[in-house]
């Protein structure tokens, strides 16, 4: 009975109506006060256990409040939750404080849009996102650099997770967990573990894939191949999933699962690529320790970049301003040259073909020297098997995979039709998202305005596809070499193939003069190109299975 009364309902806060929110907050305040009531001295030792339990419960509430006070798009909620926290603190109870430096570890908090200072369009986006999820996650806060994309992204994600689809809700979150776990992305795993439990998923499944239904276990193999070596997907994989007696997937379910898998693989790339911090209310996002104890947090240590380090980098950046200024200039000059001399200098056919091969081969060797192991905060490894299976470069290991020619199987003509046939509307949504990501431009480059960046964007996009062996007949892969320098390639390669190895150093060392929003833009290109590449391979296999 008491439990029921103390059940906190957060959903009232998602309302757009301020009175509702106020009522809900008042409710929460009362509950919290009641809870603190029983915690306060006189302390009875016999209650030790139950106290610990209720303290745990209270701490969760407080953490959630903390999140609200920072991240709720509604001002009244932010203020009020802060007020509640304060009043709790006055009662002598330790309250949590956020760890880290805002939504991203790579981007200084001041660069990122503060909740509360957004314009009307962004506010609508925030409110929508908040209403749907009950939170405003760090990914959203970073993506809001590009509201146009964010809108499409949120719409797609909402549709994939919450709207009509062949898979039950808890399956969807579980597949999300599986996909994120392949890249040891504890951030996404944490988020979706919560969501998974929220929609009624069986907590047992979270102990590892072997506890999930056979049907999901069967998907493990596809997940693995798709994440690391999508070019190895064959129609036999598909057949194995579709014809597994009572555990078989239907085509529609499979397409849904594939879309989810690719979505979360690439989202994991984004999470690492932009250094998304843990959510405030999740593990590792807050601490109850007073600030004096330590000045940096766990996740900073593991990545070797606590605040001091950041300062150094920043100062280093300042020193090399002139250096990097030339970088931008040089890049622009190259673009200009390419634009002009394209017609004059005509590379021979063999030349063109070999350029692709060279680029493909070279992309294998582009790898960061620092092979630090990031330690996942939550034990995510239990969500997948065969941890040793990672991105393997094809040619380096002697396997030669026939080049995937986009002219023979492309998203617009083939992939879209297939997805839309089997999972209506989603093809449309993803198609839109690809388009927005590919065509997004503000015609700026660092400090320059009115620049046609299409060439650069195309180079990035095609470079990523090139890493997956996807070739565009009508593209001169020599351009990539001209436009993308080595540190940038290292970053792209790492984000796309082994996102868990991205470090702040890598993030900082490419395109030093560019704005953070531009780097996030690059990330959007990366994740969409990656998603499309994976989808193309998976859908081609499905098509082959069907014919």
């Amino acid at each position, binding site marked *: 009975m008491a439990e029921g009364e103390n059940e906190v309902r957060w959903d009232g806060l998602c309302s757009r109506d301020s009175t509702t929110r106020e009522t809900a907050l008042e409710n929460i305040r009362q509950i919290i006060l009641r809870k603190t009531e029983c915690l306060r001295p006189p302390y009875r030792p016999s209650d030790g256990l139950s106290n610990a339990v209720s303290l745990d419960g209270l701490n969760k509430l407080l953490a959630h409040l903390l999140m609200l006070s920072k991240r709720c798009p509604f001002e009244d909620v932010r203020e009020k939750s802060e007020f509640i926290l304060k009043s709790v603190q006055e009662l002598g109870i330790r309250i949590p404080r956020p760890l880290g430096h805002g939504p991203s570890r790579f981007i200084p908090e001041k660069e990122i849009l503060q909740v509360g200072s957004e314009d009307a369009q962004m506010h609508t986006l925030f409110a929508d996102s908040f209403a749907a999820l009950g939170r405003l996650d760090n990914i959203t806060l970073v993506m809001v650099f590009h509201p146009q994309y964010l809108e499409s992204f949120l719409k797609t994600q909402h549709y994939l997770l919450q709207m*009509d689809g062949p898979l039950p809700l808890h399956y969807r979150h579980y597949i999300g967990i599986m996909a994120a776990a392949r890249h040891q992305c504890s951030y996404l795993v944490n988020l979706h573990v919560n969501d998974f439990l929220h929609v009624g998923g069986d907590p047992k499944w979270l102990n590892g894939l072997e506890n999930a239904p056979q049907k999901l276990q069967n998907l493990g193999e596809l997940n693995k191949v798709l994440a690391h070596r999508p070019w190895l997907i064959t129609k036999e994989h598909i057949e194995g999933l579709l014809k597994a007696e009572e555990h078989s997937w239907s085509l529609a379910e499979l397409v849904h699962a594939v879309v989810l898998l690719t979505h979360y693989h690439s989202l994991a790339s984004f999470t690492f690529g932009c250094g998304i911090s843990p959510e405030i209310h999740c593990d590792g996002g807050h601490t109850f320790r007073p600030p004096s104890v330590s000045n940096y947090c766990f996740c900073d240590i593991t990545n070797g970049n606590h605040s001091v380090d950041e300062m150094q980098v920043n100062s280093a950046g300042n020193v090399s301003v002139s250096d990097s200024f030339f970088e931008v200039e040089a890049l622009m000059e190259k673009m200009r040259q390419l634009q002009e001399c394209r017609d004059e200098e005509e590379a021979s056919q063999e030349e063109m073909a070999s350029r692709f091969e060279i680029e493909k081969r070279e992309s294998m060797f582009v790898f960061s020297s620092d092979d630090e192991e990031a330690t996942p905060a939550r034990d995510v490894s239990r969500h997948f098997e065969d941890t040793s299976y990672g991105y393997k470069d094809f040619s380096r290991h002697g396997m030669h995979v026939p080049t995937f020619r986009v002219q023979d199987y492309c998203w617009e003509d083939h992939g879209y*039709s*297939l997805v839309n046939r089997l999972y209506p509307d989603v093809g449309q949504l993803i198609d839109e998202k690809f388009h927005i990501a590919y065509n997004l431009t503000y015609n700026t480059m660092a400090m320059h305005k009115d620049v046609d960046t299409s060439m650069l964007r195309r180079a990035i996009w095609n470079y990523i596809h090139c890493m997956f062996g996807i070739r565009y*007949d009508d593209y001169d892969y020599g351009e990539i070499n001209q436009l993308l320098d080595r540190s940038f390639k290292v970053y792209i390669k790492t984000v796309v193939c082994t996102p868990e190895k991205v470090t702040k150093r890598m993030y900082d060392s490419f395109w030093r003069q560019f704005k953070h929003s531009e780097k996030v833009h690059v990330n959007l290109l990366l994740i969409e190109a990656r998603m499309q590449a994976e989808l193309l391979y998976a859908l081609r296999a499905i098509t082959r299975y069907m014919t």
Partner: protein
Amino acid sequence: MEKMSRVTTALGGSVLTGRTMHCHLDAPANAISVCRDAAQVVVAGRSIFKIYAIEEEQFVEKLNLRVGRKPSLNLSCADVVWHQMDENLLATAATNGVVVTWNLGRPSRNKQDQLFTEHKRTVNKVCFHPTEAHVLLSGSQDGFMKCFDLRRKDSVSTFSGQSESVRDVQFSIRDYFTFASTFENGNVQLWDIRRPDRCERMFTAHNGPVFCCDWHPEDRGWLATGGRDKMVKVWDMTTHRAKEVHCVQTIASVARVKWRPECRHHLATCSMMVDHNIYVWDVRRPFVPAAMFEEHRDVTTGIAWRHPHDPSFLLSGSKDSTLCQHLFRDASQPVERANPEGLCYGLFGDLAFAAKESLVATESGRKPYTGDRRHPIFFKRKLDPAEPFAGLASSALSVFEMEPGSGSMSWFVDTAERYALAGRPLAELCDHNAKVARELGRNQVAQTWTMLRIIYCSPGLVPATNLNHSVGKGSSCGLPLMNSFNLKDMAPGLGSETRLDRSKGDTRSDTVLLDSSATLITNEDNEETEGSDVPADYLLGDVEGEEDELYLLDPEHAHSEEPEYVLPQEAFPLRHEIVDTPPGPEHLQDKADSPHVSGSEADAASLVPMDSSFSLISVSHALYDSRLPPDFFSALVCDMLRFYAEQGDVQMAVSVLIVLGERVRKDIDEQTQEHWYTSYIDLLQRFCLWNVSNQVVKLSTSRAISCLNQASTTLHVNCSHCKRPMSSRGWICDRCHRCASMCAVCHHVVKGLFVWCQGCSHGGHLQHIMKWLEGSSHCPAGCGHLCEYS
């Protein structure tokens, strides 16, 4: 004939002949094009570029244009076109953005003529001017169209679509200066070749990319477009605004569209994904293709009519590396196979059904009673022979009238409401349901329940609750032959139970029979069956095995006796298609009461004594036997469920399925279960039995069903103050900012179940109101109303 002569003239004296044929290419084709003389076809693809001669019986490779040591991307063709004026002139569009022209008249082995490398992206389409010898048009992924004069080294003019990639360009056949282009964003543009600055006209034709277009060869205004949205649209361009005159919905995205020569309304399409067939549509009949060519095993990438004035030859190239010539007369015509049928319900439950006469005739000849027996509703059939139908010479219209009263489904409603499906031990559920069925006069069903109970519940319980004492005793005594009673023995002792015994006897035989033929008895037919007032056949579960051989000896014979008895009709439709007993089941029921006996029945009657003695033996055997595990019967039970479902009593099937749960579920495949569930739920909802249907949904184990409860769970409410819909939250109004539903007892907002008195419209939490009403019958809000809740 006239057409033929035209063809002949066009061909310069030779008549086009040939047959349906195909030849294997070395590589997948991307496009094909036909020479003006209709005797040669060029096939182009990523790694193929060849010219084939079309001969009477086969394709003969004539020329391989892919020469040179190294494969070049310039030869990786996305499209190819043969000039319709000059037999020596070809143009290809390469995937790397190069436009190449070829001159077959060149003496050297390499026929490559000119190379235009102006496009930055893949060129999707090339098109020659229909009359001008030197004008070539190209459309590319980079969004530009270029017009080349083949006498010059570079393009004459460039047209910018100002939008996304160009997917197709086509010169108008009639208007010298006009061409149409289609775009990836769904637009179609019309251009004047003299004015490269802007297009003449632009409109959005499709949702998503427009992959192809084709001008009508005769009608100057008509343009057909095909898109990713699976539509083919025909536009009339002569009017001020492009008007959609026809629309054909296909099943996959449309990759190519080509008007059929000499057939004003016909066009051929092929698709880009999934579907491999080529269809020829009559645009006036957009739902069924006029013809269908099914030769290809992978997607068809190029289609071309062989001759511009001959409608019967179609050439096609495909990703499956074949080149085909299709003859129109060899095409499969879906229209022929389609059975035009119409079905409509009248206001009072009458049913009208129209179909081709031939269909109706054969159908009814074969199964005279199908319709009547399956449904609990009885139909009278009137045949209205001369019902005119457009295009169909003979069709029949049948009207089925409902007999007043017979359509009553009250038994269904009662059963649905009173059945217990869960929450109690299996035995109780079965008993309860049996009782319900019995009270509703559905003895057959009642017996089934009893049987299920016997099969699945522990043996000890059985005799105690059953009426049949004699057997009960038998089992307790366990004497081998103690109950080898026959008819006469029974009569004095049990009075009216002669009949019982008989029915028992035949149940026996029946079971055995069924067992041997692996089907199930029982039939939910709502009619009286006399044996059924006693659960006489509760024993049948025990007996089976050893009886088999006895009856297998003479299955014919066993079967023939069926009509004599009461129950046999059950098994009847299942095993035999009413072959030797022309009267329908209704007659059988009557017969039990009336002395009227048909010939075959008389025969059977003579067998009675022997039969009953068999059964008696079997009973005694049975009593010895230890119980068979319930698993043993699961096949039987499943068959029974199927039988019920087939009989139209899906209610029984689903109820049993739910009650038995895991015991039988695994033996019936998911799809069937799902099908039953959906039908039952649908029925329940038609009778407004929402609660029951919800219970069924909840109890179902099929995932597809249980998620029904998760779909559209939104409940829309209006604010009680301003009467506007409350969109964001159900309990607070966005407009008047008031909490709409306060509990009159606790004065808090009600967010879950809200009950209110319809008299004074005060209400609140269900629990609170219930508690309140225990103490007082006045309204808790203090309005003085004496609240009433139903």
